[in-house]
């Protein structure tokens, strides 16, 4: 396809390290004895448990329901018995534990009743969104935002649906393998998404370092006799898979600062999410498994595994020939945007795309003073001034960092990668964002406290007034009663 392409600013050429994990076909991960399912695997409110300890559950059964609009339910990924509900280690940069439901599997893999809707074309888009919501589908590219929300055009016209198949971060190959092995599922899912959005155009954007996956998509489109979906190869340059960057490369349109793609008529979903949508709607299967890349220098047989959500990471490392106890550095995600997982007993969750394992953490070079070389600004794909952001975050001048569009930073790490002074720039931005969010939350809390305090003062004043009124009345009554008595005897 020789479509016209645009170029996003900055970016880096990184060594891909992708072939390591694409040599072997994807295998199913072994059924673990225990599945630990966190209630919070998505952006939004934590799901609410609907099963009790001791209860038998079937594969695909809802074990926690969505709470509020921005939320997603959690399903049992295999049949078994609920043996615990409480705080367990989860993959999170804090290393803290969080509420989970633990299922002891029975090996039967017995499904609950499924309700497939093979012919989605007869369905109303809002019904489809509901099915997708109930299936617990969230963005599988890493963000984990509930997908049904991004399938609602909200009265705006969506002219283009973009499928993100760029997978630009080194080491990660789960989307690549999914496209090679399950291209038809992805295409079916895309058609459902398109139906829900009424999108006129549809483009799959894929980096040109994945020729097999590209060929598989083109072949599937031909075999299924589907036209109207373009597959476009984009130059391999990190972070081509950033949502705003991919949109820019494919359409030349720029998502405004603090804006959403839908504001410029575009919606972007990940290809693995599309496959999950197909399974949810046409097979009636909720999101209970995903492809995960197990790779890195500490993994003897790197490959992709199809993993039931809730499977302990340690078991996946073992299945790929690694001894979890010798892994000193485990990252969820890729080397640029991933975060360290504190224990390999943590489970795979909906957003786990890759496990990157090594015996030791890479040596961190000591940070030196900023020499104002400007290399960071040249590398930034979001057109930011990383050096200014750093300066203000460092000085705790968070408002000023915000004025330099801190919240447009996608934390891609390009700036830190090129910084000759090895300043951990992204960590400063995450810190500054966290402080701003915390202040915002505290301000909201203070506003509530102020209102409650004022209400209390008003209530006390009213009570006092009432007391005084009663008092005055009593006095008056007393005076009224006493007066005649006083005069009577005379």
């Amino acid at each position: 396809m020789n479509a016209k392409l645009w170029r996003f600013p900055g970016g880096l050429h990184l060594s891909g390290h992708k072939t390591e994990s694409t040599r072997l076909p994807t295998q199913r991960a072994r059924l673990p004895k225990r599945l630990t399912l966190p209630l919070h695997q998505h952006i939004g409110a934590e799901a609410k448990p609907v099963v009790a300890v001791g209860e038998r559950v079937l594969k695909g059964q809802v074990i926690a329901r969505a709470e509020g609009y921005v939320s997603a339910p959690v399903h049992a990924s295999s049949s078994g018995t609920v043996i615990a509900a409480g705080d367990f280690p989860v993959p999170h940069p804090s290393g803290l534990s969080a509420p989970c439901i633990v299922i002891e599997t029975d090996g039967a893999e017995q499904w609950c009743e499924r309700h497939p809707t093979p012919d989605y074309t007869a369905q109303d888009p809002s019904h489809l969104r509901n099915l997708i919501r109930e299936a617990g589908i969230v963005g599988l590219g890493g963000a984990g935002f509930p997908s049904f929300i991004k399938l609602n055009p909200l009265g705006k016209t969506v002219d283009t649906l973009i499928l993100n198949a760029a997978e630009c971060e080194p080491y990660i190959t789960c989307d690549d393998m999914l496209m090679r092995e399950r291209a038809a599922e992805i295409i079916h899912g895309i058609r459902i998404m398109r139906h829900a959005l009424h999108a006129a155009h549809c483009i799959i954007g894929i980096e040109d370092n994945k020729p097999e996956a590209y060929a598989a998509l083109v072949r599937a489109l031909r075999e299924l006799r589907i036209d109207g979906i373009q597959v476009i190869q984009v130059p391999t340059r990190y972070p081509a898979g950033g949502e705003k960057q991919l949109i820019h490369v494919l359409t030349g349109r720029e998502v405004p600062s603090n804006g959403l793609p839908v504001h410029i008529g575009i919606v972007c979903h990940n290809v693995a999410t599309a496959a999950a949508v197909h399974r949810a709607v046409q097979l009636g299967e909720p999101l209970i498994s995903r492809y995960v890349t197990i790779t890195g220098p500490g993994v003897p047989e790197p490959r992709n595994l199809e993993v039931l959500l809730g499977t302990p990471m340690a078991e996946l490392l073992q299945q790929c020939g690694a001894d979890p106890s010798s892994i000193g550095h485990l990252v969820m995600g890729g080397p640029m945007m991933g975060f360290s997982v504190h224990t390999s007993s943590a489970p795979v969750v909906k957003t786990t795309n890759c496990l990157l394992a090594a015996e030791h953490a890479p040596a961190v070079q000591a940070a030196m003073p900023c020499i104002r070389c400007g290399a960071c600004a040249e590398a930034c794909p979001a057109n930011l001034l990383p050096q200014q952001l750093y300066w203000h975050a460092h000085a705790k001048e968070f408002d000023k960092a915000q004025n330099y569009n801190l919240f447009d930073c996608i934390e891609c790490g390009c700036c830190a990668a090129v910084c000759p002074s090895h300043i951990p720039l992204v960590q400063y931005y995450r810190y500054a964002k966290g402080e701003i969010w915390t202040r915002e939350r505290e301000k909201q809390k203070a506003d509530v406290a102020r209102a409650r305090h004022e209400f209390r003062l008003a209530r006390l004043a009213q009570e006092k007034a009432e007391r005084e009124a009663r008092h005055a009345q009593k006095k008056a009554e007393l005076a009224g009663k006493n007066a005649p008595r006083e005069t009577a005897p005379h």
Partner: protein
Amino acid sequence: MLSAILAFTALAAAFGLILGFAAVRFKVEGDPLVDKIDALLPQTQCGQCTYPGCRPYAEAIAKGEADINQCPPGGEAGIIALADLLGRDPKPLNARHGAVKPKMVAVIDEPLCIGCTLCIQACPVDAILGAAKQMHTVIEQECTGCELCVAPCPVDCIRMAPVQQDIRSWKWQAPLEAAGSHA
């Protein structure tokens, strides 16, 4: 037990409604400067500034009767914000008013509670629920951590506990810096 929970939920809902009204009806008509200062204060309503609440302290600052460094819950960030607003130089917290402490909430040891209602009378934000001779409980979300309920309790069943950190309240820390790592 269930009826108690229902009653509390209903109460909480009612408070929510009332608050809306309160904000409109009982808004203290005020001096815009006092409002601006009050907006920067943490609303803990603890009285450590020696004034009976944040707004009286805001009024005192506006009149020039109080300094800007008397509020421990506001901490350094609060002082800097006040200094910014008033065009003055920030100064360290006046230690006479207390020290900066991590965020706390009051917890009532419920089996010990005798239902005397003294804590309810002390709470500046009505964050304690309960009736005479009934067990009392703190609505954790609404508690400002002012500690005003601790002293009045005749059976010492209220203690202050640090706010538990979870993955939602957790935040990234600033990178550790070696000496001289920045210009």
